[in-house]
C-alpha cells in the first residue's frame, strides 16, 4: 500500500479520482497533489524504492538520487504553477491529462529500469496529447494525431532498443548506456525524438501552439526535460551529443527570428535551450552535467513563464500572432513585466536565473577545449536575445500599437507568473540555492567581475545591434505567414506526391496480386485435383495398388537398411 504513495502513483491516483470531483475540488487537486507529492518525494532517502517484480523483471519505480531529485523537484514546481495558472479551467479532460502527464514525467525521471521508463515514456505521450485535443478544433485534432504518432514512435523505438539491449546484456537497468550497440542506438534515437534533436524536432513547434493555453504551459515543462534527464542518465559523455547540441542550439534561432506565431517562437527557443543542455550532457564532466540539470531547472521556470505570459495574451486576445499584436503594455503591465523577467532570464542577464545556469555549460564547454562548440553556444546565447528576449516582449507589448486593449490577465494567471518570475530572480540572486540541488557539487561563482562584464558586453551590444538594425530597416517586420520547417516534408511534399506514388503502388499491387492469385489458383487447382473426393490421394485405393505401395516401400526399407 505504501508503494502507491510514490509520487508518480499519487498523480495517477489523483488523475483517476479527478473526474468524480466537483469542479472547484478538481482545481484544488491540481494544486494540492504537486505539493503533497513533492513532500513525499523529498521524504524518500536516496536509493532504490518501490521495486515491483513483474514476470521476472524487477521494476524499480523510485530510484532516488540527486540527478533524479532535481528533475523531480522542478517537475513538481512546474505542475504546481501550471495548476495555478489553469485555475480557471473547468475542462475535466485537461485536468486529468495534466495530472497524468505530470505523474508520468515524474515517474520517468524516477524510473530505475528501462521497462518502467518505457511505461512512463508512453504515458507522457498518451497523456499529453489530450492537452492538444482539448482545444477541440479539427486542426488541433490533426496536429495532436501527428504529435501522438511521433511520440509513440519514440516509445516504440525505446521498446525495440530495450529489447535488443536486454538481449545483448541481459540487463534492464537504466544506468549509463553509452552509444555502443544497436540497442543503445535505438534507445538514443528514442530519447533524441523526445529531446527534439535537429530534424527530429518538428513535433515541438508543431504541437505547442496547437495545445490549449494552459496545455502549452504544461507541455513546455515535461516531455523535453524528461528526455534531457534520460540523456544525462544514459548517455553522459557521448561526444556526438556535443555537436548535436551545438547545432540544436543554433539552428532554431534562424527559424524563430522570422516566425510570426509567438508560441512557435517560444517553442523554437525552447528547442535552442535544449541544445545547451544536450551539449552539457555530451561533455559529460561533473560541471557540465550539473550545468545541464541546472539549466533544465531554470529553463522550466523561465520558459514556463514566457509561455504563461504569451498564453495570458492569447487568453485575452485569442491570438499569438506577432503581426496582430503590439502595444499591449498599456493594459497588461503585470504580464509585460513577468515576460520581461522571463526574457531576461532566458538571455542570461545577471541576477536572473539563466545567468547562473547557462554559464555553467558555457564554461564547461570552454574548459573542454572545443572552441567551435563554445563559439556556437556563445552565438546561440546571442541568438536567444534576438528571437526571444527582444522579439517576444517587444512585439507583444511595445512595437506598433495594435489598438487592442485587452484586460489584464486573470488573477490566478498573474499569481502563477509572479511566482515563476520571483523564482527566476531568487535563483539568479542566490545561485547557491540551486547549486545545492545539483547532482554534483560544483564550486562555481557566477558573479565575478569578469563574468558579469562580458555578459553585459554581449547582451548590450546585441541590444545595440537590434537598435541599429531596426533603424536601418533591416530587422524583419512581422508578417502573417507560415515558415517552412522540415515537417513540410511529411505535411506537404509527401502528401502532394502521394497520389502518384499511390497509383504506382496500386498498379504494382494489382499486377502482383493478379500474378500471385494466378499462381495460387493454379496451386489450388493442382491440390484440389490431387485431393478432392475421388482424386488419387483421396480415393480408396485398390488392394493391388496398396500392395504395390507396400512392396515399393518394403524394397526401399530393405535396400536402405541392407546397404
Amino acid at each position, binding site marked *: 500500500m505504501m508503494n502507491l504513495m510514490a509520487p508518480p502513483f499519487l498523480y495517477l491516483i489523483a488523475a483517476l479520482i479527478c473526474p468524480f470531483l466537483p469542479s472547484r475540488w478538481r482545481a484544488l487537486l491540481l494544486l494540492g497533489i504537486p505539493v503533497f507529492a513533492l513532500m513525499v518525494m523529498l521524504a524518500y532517502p536516496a536509493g532504490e524504492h518501490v521495486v515491483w517484480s513483474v514476470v521476472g523483471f524487477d521494476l524499480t519505480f523510485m530510484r532516488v538520487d540527486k540527478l533524479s531529485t532535481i528533475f523531480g523537484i522542478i517537475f513538481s514546481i512546474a505542475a504546481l504553477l501550471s495548476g495555478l495558472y489553469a485555475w480557471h479551467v473547468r475542462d475535466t479532460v485537461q485536468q486529468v491529462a495534466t495530472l497524468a502527464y505530470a505523474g508520468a514525467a515524474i515517474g520517468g525521471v524516477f524510473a530505475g529500469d528501462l521497462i518502467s521508463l518505457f511505461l512512463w515514456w508512453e504515458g507522457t505521450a498518451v497523456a499529453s496529447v489530450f492537452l492538444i485535443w482539448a482545444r477541440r478544433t479539427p486542426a488541433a485534432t490533426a496536429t495532436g494525431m501527428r504529435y501522438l504518432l511521433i511520440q509513440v514512435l519514440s516509445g516504440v523505438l525505446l521498446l525495440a532498443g530495450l529489447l535488443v539491449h536486454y538481449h545483448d546484456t541481459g540487463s534492464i537497468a537504466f544506468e549509463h548506456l553509452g552509444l555502443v550497440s544497436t540497442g543503445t542506438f535505438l534507445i538514443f534515437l528514442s530519447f533524441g525524438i523526445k529531446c527534439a534533436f535537429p530534424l527530429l524536432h518538428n513535433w515541438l513547434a508543431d504541437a505547442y501552439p496547437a495545445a490549449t493555453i494552459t496545455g502549452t504551459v504544461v507541455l513546455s515543462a515535461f516531455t523535453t526535460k524528461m528526455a534531457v534527464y534520460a540523456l544525462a542518465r544514459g548517455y553522459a559523455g557521448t561526444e556526438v551529443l556535443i555537436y548535436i547540441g551545438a547545432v540544436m542550439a543554433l539552428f532554431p534561432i534562424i527559424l524563430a527570428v522570422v516566425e510570426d506565431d509567438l508560441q512557435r517562437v517560444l517553442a523554437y527557443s525552447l528547442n535552442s535551450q535544449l541544445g545547451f543542455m544536450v551539449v552539457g550532457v555530451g561533455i559529460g564532466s561533473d560541471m557540465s552535467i550539473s550545468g545541464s540539470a541546472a539549466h533544465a531547472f531554470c529553463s522550466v521556470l523561465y520558459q514556463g513563464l514566457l509561455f504563461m505570459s504569451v498564453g495570458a495574451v492569447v487568453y485575452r486576445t485569442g491570438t499569438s500572432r506577432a503581426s496582430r499584436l503590439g502595444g499591449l503594455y498599456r493594459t497588461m503591465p503585470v504580464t509585460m513585466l513577468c515576460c520581461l523577467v522571463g526574457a531576461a532570464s532566458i538571455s542570461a542577464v545577471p541576477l536572473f536565473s539563466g545567468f547562473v545556469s547557462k554559464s555553467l555549460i558555457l564554461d564547461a564547454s570552454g574548459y573542454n577545449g572545443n572552441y567551435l562548440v563554445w563559439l556556437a553556444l556563445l552565438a546561440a546565447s546571442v541568438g536567444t536575445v534576438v528571437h526571444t528576449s527582444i522579439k517576444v516582449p517587444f512585439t507583444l507589448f511595445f512595437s506598433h500599437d495594435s489598438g487592442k486593449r485587452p484586460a489584464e490577465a486573470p488573477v490566478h494567471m498573474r499569481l502563477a507568473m509572479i511566482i515563476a518570475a520571483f523564482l527566476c530572480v531568487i535563483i539568479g540572486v542566490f545561485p547557491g540555492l540551486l547549486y545545492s540541488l545539483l547532482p554534483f557539487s560544483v564550486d562555481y561563482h557566477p558573479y565575478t567581475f569578469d563574468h558579469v562584464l562580458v555578459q553585459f558586453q554581449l547582451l548590450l551590444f546585441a541590444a545595440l545591434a537590434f537598435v541599429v538594425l531596426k533603424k536601418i530597416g533591416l530587422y524583419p517586420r512581422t508578417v502573417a505567414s507560415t515558415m517552412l520547417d522540415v515537417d513540410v516534408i511529411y505535411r506537404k511534399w509527401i502528401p502532394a506526391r502521394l497520389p502518384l506514388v499511390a497509383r504506382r503502388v496500386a498498379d504494382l499491387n494489382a499486377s502482383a496480386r493478379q500474378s500471385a492469385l494466378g499462381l495460387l489458383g493454379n496451386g489450388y487447382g493442382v491440390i484440389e485435383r490431387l485431393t478432392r473426393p475421388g482424386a488419387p490421394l483421396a480415393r480408396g485405393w485398390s488392394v493391388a495398388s496398396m500392395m504395390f505401395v*507396400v512392396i515399393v516401400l518394403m524394397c526401399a526399407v530393405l535396400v536402405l*537398411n541392407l546397404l
Partner: protein
Amino acid sequence: MIDQFPALQIMVTLVAAPICVMIRNPRWSWVCAMVANTFAFLVSLVLLDKVLDDGVIRYAVGGWAAPSGIEYYIDAMNAAVLVLVSGISAVVLLYAYRSVAKSVPAEKHYLFYTAWMMCVTGLLGIVITGDAFNVFVFLEISSLSMYTLISFGQDRRALTASFRYLVLGSVGASFILIGIGFLYAATGTLNMSDLAVRIPESESQRAVLVAFSFLTMGVLIKSAVFPLHAWLPNAYTHAPVAVTAFLAGTATKVSLYVLLRFFFSVFGKDYSFGQHLLNGVLLPAAVAGFVLMSLVAIFQNDLRRMLAYSSVAQVGYIVAGFSLATQSGLTAGIVHVVNHGMVKACLFMAVGCILYRVGHVHTPSLDNLLKRMPFTCVAFIISGLGLIGVPLTVGFVSKFTLIQASLEKGWWAIAALVLLSSLMAIVYVGRVIEIMVFRRSRETGPESSGMSEAPLSMLIPLYVLVGVSLYFGINGSATLEVAGQAATYLLGGLQ
C-alpha cells in the same frame, strides 16, 4: 489379488466374449460386455496407479519364468495405453448401445458385442504382453475381430472396406510374423527384454536387420502411416460409427505402441535411429502424411471421411514425434497418442449422434445444425478445437510439445510444417463449424426447425469423454508427466 490384475486385464473381456455368444439377447449381451469392459477399465486404472508408484510390473503366465515362458510386462508406457484403450472402449461401448441398435440388425447384436470384446481383448493383450510372438497372436485376435466389426457397417461398401483392410492387415500381420521369426532365428528368444539383450550380441546381424525391416513395415501398415494408410479412410467411413469411434481412439494407437515398443525397447534407440536409415523413410513419410492428409481432409464432403484423413494426419504427427528420438519428442508422440485418441473418439461419437438423427453426414447439408442439435454440435466444436490445437485443449498440449521438441532438436522445418498443417486443420474443422453454426438453413420447413437432440445415452458418454479431454487440456501436466516417464523408460531400455 492385486498380483493377478495383469492377467485379469485381458481375461475379463476374453471370458465376456463367449458369454455374450451364449446369452444371444441384444440387451443382456450388451450389459455383459459393458460390465466386463468397465471392470477392465478399473483394472487398468489400478495397474497404472501401481506402475507409477512402484515401477515395472512383471507377470509370468502359467508360472513359467520369463525367457522361456510368456511374460506380461507393464511399465508407465503400456499402463497408460491400457487405460486409454479400456477407457475409450468402455465409453464408446456405453454409447454404442443406441447407435448400434439403429444400424445393426437386432439378431446380430450379440455377435457385434462378442467381436467387440474380442477386439478389446486383443488390443489389451498386445499392449500388456512382453512376448514378441504373443504380440502377434493378440494382434491377430484384435485384427480379425476388427474386420468383423467393420463389416457390420450399414451398406455393402463396408464389406469391401473390411475386405481391403483384411488383405492389407493380413499382409502387415504376416510381415510382423516374418520379422518375429527372423528375430527368433537370430537370437533364439521371443521375450522382449531378452531380445533387447541378445540382439546386439547376435551373430547374424543381417537377419536382425531383415527382421527389423519387416517389423517396421508390418507395424507401419497396421498403424496407417501415410503411404500405407489406404485401408483406413474407407474402413472408418463405412464401419458402424461406434466402431469407428472405438477404432480411431484405440486401434491405430495400439499399433503405434507396438512401433514404439519394438523401436525403442527391443531394438533400442541407437539401433533404430542411429546406424540405420529409418529416418530416411519414417520421418519423410510422417511429414508427408500430416501435410498431405490434412490437405485431403479439407476437400472431403463426408464428415467421417474427413475425420478419417485427419486421423492419418495425426498419426503423422505422432510418428514424427517418435522419429525425433529424443526425450521431448517421444513425450510429444506419446501424449499425442493419448490426446488424439480421446479427441478423435469424441469427434466420431459426435458424428454418430448426427448420423443417428440426421441420417447422413454430408457436410454441406449440415447447415444450421447447431439449432437442432446444440449439445452434439457443442461437443463437436470443443473436440474440433482440440483437433486444431487451440490452447487449453489437449491438442494444444501435444502439438506444442511436438513443436518444442523439434525446435529443441533444431529441425525448424518440422515445426513450421506442423504449424502449417495445424492451419489446415483450422480450415477443415472451421469449415464444418462454419456450416453448423453460421450458415442459414436453406429450407425452413418444419423438419429443420424443431430440435432433435441425440438420446441421452449417447450424449452422456460423449460429454464424459469431452470433459476428460478438456480436463487434460487444461491440466496438461498430468498426461505430460506420465508420457515423460514412459519416454524415459523407453529411452533407457527395459529394466
